[in-house]
């Protein structure tokens, strides 16, 4: 078994209460950190925070920032972000928040419209340098 694979976990799982234990919050593999798809949750209570596309995006990226910090990475080490939205018509609302979080140059990114679990409007995952 490779010693290059390491699970990142914490008492404040960025995926919140009731999250499937079938996945890890993030996994380090080699030089990269793979972060699970995150939805908007309160980092203290772990409860989901359904809101607008903008508010969910802000909450997710704020939680992601803490997660990356715990894992020894950071926003400027992100190489690729995948964003799923409940409606592509909301992409500008997600973008407005997105630019506030990412350094210049920002990472590569894909945005898709998709059906998300539990009626959430936004889901974000990323791959970063560990």
């Amino acid at each position, binding site marked *: 078994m490779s010693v290059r694979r390491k699970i990142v976990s914490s008492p404040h799982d960025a995926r919140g209460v009731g999250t499937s234990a079938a996945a890890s919050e993030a996994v380090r593999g080699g030089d990269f950190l*793979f972060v699970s798809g995150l939805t908007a949750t309160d980092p203290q209570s772990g409860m989901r925070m359904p809101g607008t596309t903008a508010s969910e995006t802000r909450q997710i990226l704020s939680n992601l920032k803490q997660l990356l910090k715990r894992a020894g990475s950071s926003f400027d080490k992100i190489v690729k972000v995948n964003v799923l939205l409940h409606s592509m018509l909301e992409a500008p609302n997600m973008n407005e928040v997105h630019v506030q979080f990412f350094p210049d140059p920002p990472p590569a990114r894909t945005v898709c419209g*998709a059906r998300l679990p539990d009626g959430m409007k936004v*889901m974000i995952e990323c791959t970063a340098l560990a």
Partner: protein
Amino acid sequence: MSEGLVRTAIAPKNPLLNASRVGNLPHVPGIRVGEYIFLSGMVPVDTQTGERSLGPIAEQVRITLSNMQHTLESAGSSLERVVRVHVVLADIANLTEMDRIYREFFRVDPPARMVWSMQLRFGNGCEIECVALAA
């Protein structure tokens, strides 16, 4: 081009599970590069017939993950080395049922994962891809 890094196509030992070749599609089952293996999206294919196997979602997920295991092991990797999984469902209502089967395959230290739903072709109920450490 990074020096030393070589890009190699990998394939399942069971040729019937090589959906790329069987369907004459412009991709390969997987690529090994450096210490990683990147698999193409996999759908439920019967190991005996090579045909799509579109039973209940639990069965589709089990077949797909079992074939993923075979493909990884054919290339010297394994499910234990998977670091990130994408699960795409045709119907997000199947999330719980997918999860039930998924746990059978990733019992300890599971990989990072993102699950969502969007249109899939040919009536497939799920499509699953992953990134794994090669060894």
